[in-house]
């Protein structure tokens, strides 16, 4: 839309990237923007490791016979794929990269409330990541990312304690990020930036932080119990000693279900920003979108046992959890309807971020609706532990969360790097990702419904599943290309991209009112907010110098 406004500007303004050089200026930085880039590097690394495992899984399933890897190797492959993608890519992805970069800028602060704790959280992530790598290289884990007891505590001979420790440490990093966001959003807002003027990206991150803060410690203590049980032979989850394996599942899913919302809520925040900007409209139903984020965070804590419908739980409990799982669909649907209403009669621009947002809308809706299938007791009993479940959560986590992440990376790349990415390539990549994604995961819905169980490396008893599996593997290859492309042209644009103007999208929001890339303290002087969020009608009105709708006295 606005590539033509590449305003020539002095090339080397001082900014957070060129202020200081050298390894130590990065490794000891307390600047939230530099820490965001450190996170970007490290999560991209783990994304490709996790992707490599996914590729091997898909290659194994290309043929019905188990011929590429052996059964226990396959178990380790899907386990490590899950652990790496969930704990080392998806959970930190948007909050730790885009959130870290944008939360202080969007509310008009110089930094997060606790810059050194922010750096500490990255180091914890790295320590957890190195442990995970070591665990992988020395044998890995074969329990599935859920490490269910008593298999994980009494039977498997793989590196449970080490993987648990890695996840415990990474979880601590996630808690510290959430803590920083909550305090920052409460205490660091610029004068005039009231709660009802916050960008919805901030509301989404606030809701995410609540889950990180209240959910992560529970999985942490669960991991402590598993490790203690394994190392010291306690017996808390061991049915032989009167312990209860179901208790493990309850404690595990109490975090790990809300963890899905840690992945999807920030993505929803990103999509909200993109949709408002590229349809040039104020978001429809601001307060509904804001409070639906909080509602998702709250309801998200009350639905965990829908992962356990066939685990031997009381049928009455299952009934309640089924009902509550339906309830989560309400705030999610509110969001989808409000985004659609925002698009309605908007002046829509089909730039790459918007293409990803469209992709998110469609894929998240499919993922959400199949979630309702799974919340229904009857259908869930039929499709439990089949590829239907695998397809469902990939539509949410990859189709939803990763689409939003890529959309956000494109949307804010000019701000982050000070360069424009090549728009044509970006649109092509968005298309490839969308096609590749659907080709990979839609066949899995069909496979699951026909009865293909998940976590099997050999389906030679059901050779008719092969066609759909070949489609899925082919799709994964396409998807892989779609993910490689942005990485290549983002790197390319850092050197050869056109310098970005301060506000290439003519977007609302404080982060666009400072230079690209911003200076270390974000703003030349402390901003005072006198306008409502998403004032696109105002920005686009021909009379640009019209006074802002209202002057609100500075409250602090």
């Amino acid at each position, binding site marked *: 839309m606005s590539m033509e406004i590449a305003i020539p500007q002095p090339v080397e303004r001082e900014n957070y990237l060129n202020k*200081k050089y050298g390894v*130590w*200026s990065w490794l*000891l*930085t*307390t*600047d939230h923007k530099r820490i965001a880039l450190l996170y970007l590097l490290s999560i991209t690394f783990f994304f490709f490791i996790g992707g490599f495992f996914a590729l091997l899984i898909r290659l194994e399933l290309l043929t019905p016979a188990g011929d590429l890897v052996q059964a226990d190797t396959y178990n380790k492959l899907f386990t490590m794929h899950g652990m790496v993608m969930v704990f080392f890519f998806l959970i930190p992805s948007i909050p730790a990269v885009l959130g870290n970069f944008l939360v202080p800028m969007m509310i008009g*602060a*110089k*930094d*997060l*409330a*606790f*810059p*050194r*704790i922010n750096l500490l959280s990255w180091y914890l992530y790295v320590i957890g990541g190195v442990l995970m790598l070591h665990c992988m290289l020395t044998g890995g884990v074969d329990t599935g990312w859920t490490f269910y007891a008593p298999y994980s505590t009494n039977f498997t001979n793989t590196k449970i304690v080490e993987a648990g420790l890695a996840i415990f440490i990474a979880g601590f990093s996630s*808690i510290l990020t959430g*803590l*920083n966001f*909550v*305090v*920052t959003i*409460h*205490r*660091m807002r610029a004068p005039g930036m009231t709660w009802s003027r916050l960008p919805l990206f901030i509301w989404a991150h606030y809701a995410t932080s609540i889950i990180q*803060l*209240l*959910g*992560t*410690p*529970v999985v*942490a*203590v*669960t991991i*402590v*119990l598993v490790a*203690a*049980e394994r190392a*010291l*032979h*306690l*017996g*808390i989850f061991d049915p*032989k*000693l*009167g*312990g*209860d394996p179901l*208790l493990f599942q*309850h*404690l595990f899913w*109490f975090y790990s279900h809300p963890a899905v919302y840690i992945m999807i809520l920030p993505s929803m925040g990103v999509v909200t920003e993109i949709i408002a900007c590229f349809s040039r409209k104020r978001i429809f139903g601001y307060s509904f979108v804001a409070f639906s984020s909080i509602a998702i965070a709250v309801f998200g804590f009350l639905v965990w046992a829908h992962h356990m419908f066939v685990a031997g739980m009381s049928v009455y409990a299952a009934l309640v959890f089924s009902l509550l799982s339906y309830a989560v669909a309400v705030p999610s649907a509110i969001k989808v309807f409000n985004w659609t209403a925002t698009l309605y009669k908007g002046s829509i621009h089909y730039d790459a971020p918007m293409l990803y947002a469209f992709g998110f809308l469609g894929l998240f809706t499919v993922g959400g609706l199949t979630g309702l299938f799974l919340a229904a007791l009857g259908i869930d009993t039929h499709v439990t532990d089949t590829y239907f479940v695998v397809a469902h959560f990939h539509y949410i986590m990859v189709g939803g969360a990763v689409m939003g992440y890529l959309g956000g990376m494109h949307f804010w790349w000019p701000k982050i790097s000070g360069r424009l990415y090549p728009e044509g390539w970006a649109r092509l990549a968005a298309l490839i990702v969308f096609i590749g994604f659907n080709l990979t995961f839609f066949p899995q819905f069909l496979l699951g419904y026909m009865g293909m169980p998940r976590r099997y490396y050999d389906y030679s008893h059901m050779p008719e599943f092969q066609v759909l599996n070949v489609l899925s593997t082919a799709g994964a290859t396409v998807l892989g290309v779609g993910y490689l492309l942005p990485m290549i042209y983002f790197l390319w644009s850092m050197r050869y991209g056109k310098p970005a103007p301060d506000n290439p999208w003519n977007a609302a929001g404080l982060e666009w009112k400072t230079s690209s890339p911003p200076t270390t*303290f974000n703003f030349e002087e*402390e901003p005072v907010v006198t306008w409502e969020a998403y004032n696109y009608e105002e920005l686009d009105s021909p009379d640009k110098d019209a006074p802002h709708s209202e002057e609100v006295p500075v409250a*602090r």
Partner: protein
Amino acid sequence: MPDSTAVLHQEEDRPELLHHFADAEQQRDASSLGMWVFLATEVMFFGGLFCAYLVYRRWYFGDFAAASKSINMALGATNTAVLICSSLTVVLAVWAAQTARRTLLLVSLAITMLLGVTFLGIKGIEYRDKFVEHHVPGASFSFEHESIPGHPGQYANPRHAQIFFSLYFVMTGLHALHMIIGLGIFLWLLIMAWKGRFTPEYNTPIEIGGLYWHFVDIIWIYLFPLLYLIDRHP
């Protein structure tokens, strides 16, 4: 100038005000809110353990009561008193920092640490007793012929009692770990106070360190009756 020192405010008279805060009040509010939020995560951390405790205590009440009888209530009660006293000295330390009473501040911090160490020492004695009595879960665990209180002739199931001791060691062990971290924090506070860093205008570290200490005490206030006083009658 390296980044770590660049974060310090330029004004000479307020070295403790970090660059990204508008004023000292905002900084204090942020630090204190940060500690409260952190304590909320700690509640959830221990909450998982309390949840496990609740489940098994309901299932195996008699066995839990028998196992609970075997731990030394007198030592537990002494430790409760020790921690309550330490909370008092923490409050005194905060008050002393706010009112610039240097000697009282140093003495209160030192006594708090002393009480913390006393707690850990008594805890150590309790753990040693459990080792001696073979009440530590694992291969050498033994809890044979221990009668269930109130049910003469009925013996506790050793396997279920082992779950009690598992929870006992995990819960008190994690609590003790928090105490050790608290001692580290208070040692740092003591050094800073010795150097005269705290003034009536700037004493946030004492305040939030104190919040942490009180939290660890409160966890013990729950642990003591839940672990030591199951089915005890006068």
